[in-house]
């Protein structure tokens, strides 16, 4: 695989590097469809300004969109983590700084993964503090005509 006559092999020979290399390609092909559908749903079939809390709550009322979003989150975070790791390994030569930056990327990836998954999985719009308040329904304002019309009776 990935053998050509133009130069060194682009594919690592074995081990974690090979797994990471394949994961980037496979997850990229899956994410191609998932991410483009996600983007077109949010920006093209409906305007992103029309996204409301109720719309998202309705989306997450069935397991399908929760699963879709979690799979997309996991694949995208690992795909991105691997990509940034390639960039750091290419441009940062001093070993201490490289280890520090790579660790930062791994910690950020894990933190976002956990935070995002917990947010999606534990979303419960039926809890009292998570419900949309219906108290902003105001009665139509009554015109106060006592000053100009002495015959009107304003009942309290």
């Amino acid at each position: 695989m990935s053998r050509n006559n133009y130069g060194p092999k682009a594919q690592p020979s074995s081990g974690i590097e090979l797994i990471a290399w394949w994961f980037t390609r496979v997850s990229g092909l899956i994410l191609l469809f998932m991410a483009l559908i996600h983007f077109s749903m949010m920006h093209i079939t409906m305007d992103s300004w029309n996204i409301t809390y109720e719309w998202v709550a309705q989306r997450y009322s069935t397991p399908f969109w929760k699963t879709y979003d979690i799979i997309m989150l996991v694949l995208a975070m690992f795909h991105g983590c691997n990509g940034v790791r390639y960039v750091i390994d290419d441009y940062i030569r001093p070993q201490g700084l490289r280890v520090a930056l790579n660790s930062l990327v791994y910690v950020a990836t894990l933190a976002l993964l956990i935070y995002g998954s917990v947010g999606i999985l534990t979303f419960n719009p039926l809890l009292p503090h998570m419900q949309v308040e219906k108290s902003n329904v105001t009665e139509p304002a009554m015109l106060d005509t006592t000053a100009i019309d002495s015959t009107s009776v304003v009942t309290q």
Partner: protein
Amino acid sequence: MLEVLKYKGREGMLAWAFHRLSGLAIFAFLFAHIIEMSMLSYGPKNFESALNLYRYNLLRFAEYGLGLVVLYHALNGTRIALMDIFDSIQVFQKKLFYIQMVLFTLLAIYGFYEMIYKTVIANFIK
């Protein structure tokens, strides 16, 4: 700036450079996107105020720019992944790049119509 075109790599090197830049940009955006979307579990008011960060007309162009970045990274990445899985098409690398850029232009124009014309320009013309 145009010296970058004097390197021998031509389209392949430019494609790779933009792939890296777009990947880093998407990762940075994803960081902010996950944090802002996690406001969902803090209640409707916090979620709406997080979404209100985007409700400025000027940011529609930033949204469109994000769409272009994702589109480029996706198309180029597909080309890379397909070339890595099927070794025999690596000979057509440059032709595939041109096909990819034609597709990119078509989808960019369609995206401009959907995201910018319908929302900003059509309301401006009225």
